[in-house]
């Protein structure tokens, strides 16, 4: 580095600048390596994420006499409300189930996640997606985690457009795609804070919870229709059929009716395994998630409705080029 006017008497400071820059690079490298190799090793959620992603990607198209490949996709509701072992048992050996449940995800996370899975060669015959109505119409994605762990690099611009990212958000998304640390920083922060303050996670959740409103956005039906059609077409283009289910909630699911109507209009099979108030308020650990004890009951209800659809013998839609 030279300058038009330069002071060459400050050699210690010059060395210090290089030393500081070297330290910055080392710190950045250290956290990146730790995120890539350390976090999956120490974080159970991340380990599960990778395991489930591998299994989902490995789902292959099967001939008619083989078990039907089923991808169980969703967010924490898929994880908490469905007792996976019981679910697999109840569907029986005719189905090969792989779950990919990522906490705090919504429609766009699943849409781009599915694109990535299909590109990776995953060929489920059924994509079973469950959440509340709000998750199906939400415009949000799971921040930097989405960019790094869910999004395919080729979808970066499409995802930026869909999330209405401005130039700053787009640059952050690009960095998150490249950097594992940036992608999982939220997990690291939570883990370190929980280590310092054991009840931090619940505390942070209570700080950031948004006030609920009974107002339903006016364009919600149009959005639900457009998004469900898009997802249905994506699945169909890869030889899969989309089936969605609506999760029970402690309070009335204000977007449930719109999603139900839209799914019917779009010809997407929709299941409502539990009628409103079928689960008492005490069955919920929070406004949307069932307690551990209630999950098996819900699982049975879901699998009872789902099994006939999966085994109906109907041929899946013929794959069309995406």
């Amino acid at each position, binding site marked *: *580095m*030279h*300058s*038009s*006017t*330069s*002071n060459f008497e*400050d*050699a*210690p*400071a*010059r*060395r*210090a*600048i290089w*030393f*500081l820059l070297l*330290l*910055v690079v*080392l*710190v*950045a490298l250290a*956290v990146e390596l730790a995120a890539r190799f350390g976090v999956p090793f120490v974080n159970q959620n991340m380990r599960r994420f990778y395991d489930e992603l591998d299994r989902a990607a490995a789902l292959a198209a099967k001939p008619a006499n083989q078990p039907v490949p089923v991808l169980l996709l969703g967010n924490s509701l898929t994880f908490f409300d469905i007792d996976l072992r019981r679910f697999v048992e109840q569907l029986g050996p005719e189905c090969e189930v792989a779950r990919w449940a990522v906490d705090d995800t919504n429609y766009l996370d699943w849409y781009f996640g599915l694109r990535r899975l299909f590109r990776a060669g995953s060929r489920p015959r059924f994509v079973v997606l469950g959440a509340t109505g709000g998750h199906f119409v939400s415009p949000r994605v799971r*921040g930097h985690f989405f960019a790094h762990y869910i999004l395919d690099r080729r979808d970066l611009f499409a995802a930026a457009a869909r999330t209405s990212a401005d*130039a*700053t958000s787009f*640059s*952050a998304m690009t*960095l998150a795609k490249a950097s594992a*640390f*940036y992608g999982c*920083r*939220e997990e*690291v*922060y*939570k883990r*370190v*804070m929980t280590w*310092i*303050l054991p*009840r*931090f996670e619940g*505390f*942070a959740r*209570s*700080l*950031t*919870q948004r*006030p609920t409103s009974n107002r339903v956005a006016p364009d919600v039906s149009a959005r639900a229709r457009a998004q469900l059609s898009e997802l249905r077409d994506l699945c169909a283009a890869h030889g899969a059929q989309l089936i969605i289910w609506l999760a029970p909630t402690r309070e009335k699911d204000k977007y449930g009716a719109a999603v139900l109507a839209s799914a019917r209009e779009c010809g997407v099979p929709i299941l409502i395994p539990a009628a409103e108030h079928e689960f008492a308020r005490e069955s919920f650990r929070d406004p949307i998630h069932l307690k551990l004890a209630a999950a098996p009951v819900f699982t049975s209800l879901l699998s009872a409705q789902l099994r006939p659809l999966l085994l109906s013998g109907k041929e899946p839609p013929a794959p069309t080029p995406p």
Partner: protein
Amino acid sequence: MYFDTPVYFVFLTLITLAYWRLQWRAQNVLLVAASYFFYGWWNWRFLFLMGGSTLVDYFLAAQIAKSSDARKRRLFLVVSLVMNFGFLGAFKYFNFFIDSFSHVAGWFGHAERLAPVLRIVLPAGISFYTFQAVAYIVDVYHRKMEPARSLLDYALFISFFPHLVAGPIQRPAHLLPQTQSPRTFDAGRVFDGLMLIVTGLFRKCVVADNCALLANGVFNGNLGELNLPLVLLGTYAFAWQIYGDFSGYSDIARGSAQLLGFHFMVNFRQPYLATSLSDLWRRWHISLSTWLRDYLYIPLGGNRHGEANTQRNLFLTMLLGGLWHGANWTFVIWGALHGAGLAVARWLGFQPETSARENAATSFSTLKRWLARIAVFHFVCLGWIFFRATSVNEAFRFLQGLARPTWLPQYWIALQFLAIFTVPLFLLDLRLERFQEEYPFEKLKPFGGALSYRRRAIFAACLLLAVLIFAATEPSAFIYFQF
């Protein structure tokens, strides 16, 4: 482009690397282009506003300096002031006045006719660059300085990206000469600049953004019904949020400028260690408080026309300072509180010492000093309640919580959370105060200069690691961007 985003550091690195390879005039061209790019990254449409007012002010100042006709000179000054304050008023206060008139008209049943018809987007940084432009034109008018020698230098003075959107408000006499002469690459200053950037990131991303989580949680009612402990927790959290936020921003701005060979004035000097309100305003947002002193308080008469007028001037200055922060009655009340506090303190003759150095030289005991600091801090916190609240009603609702002294066990974790993120900054401030340091740990030289630099680099690396790990996952925008 926000200072706490990765893209800013890519931008800053590229600009710095290119900058030191150019000759002086080309450096200025690069910086103006970079500054306009920086500003346009947010909203390119407002580039025309800034560019237009720069052009007009440059030519008006030149005319003022050239002319010897007092009437003409005054006319040019008035045109410039009307233009600058006109833009500020139109973009910042239009809705405020329409809303207020509508509210008053509503008492007489005429609200609908006056209902606001425009919702104007506030151009980022307009309050800051307007004040810089006004200071320049007024200084030229008073012949305190020569006008800028070239439009390029003046455009750089106004738009230089480190101070553009949230200050520190640079004085023409300080910054303009720097744009008009070659800058020297001084490795020591560049190193100090890097230190400032790292500490600024720590203040903003770790302290401010985490305190924001708690403050927002309390103010939004997420922790339950307001009571004494919650009001205190929320207010303390906001006090440290706004301090970390703005001082962090100022540090990054100063550090960025130093990488490019410029020097900016210090904007914060450990304000929560102030022992009186007047001391506070010598430590908090110094670039604004000195601007208000020189271009508002003194022209109003300052302390030259008796005690009553001095107190009136103090009060008016702070009131307008409050309104500068935002078009809301909450800011007016905040300014009025500080104005009244300053006036009353002066009336009572309560003017304790102003700095650690002076404190040390007097008999002001440690205990008294700390009691004064605590009292001033709590007065400041009272003001912050109005500053943070979205309406006057919300502020009073918040204050009513003070009457309910209920302690719940879950507040303990909130207190711990607050302590984790504020105590480190408090300790850093104590050190800066004790050693009167302008840059963090600059006087750490137990084993000679070279080792001191290295130790400071290690300290910076530790802070950076803390930023990477503890930066809040829901970053909040810089508070002063909205002003």
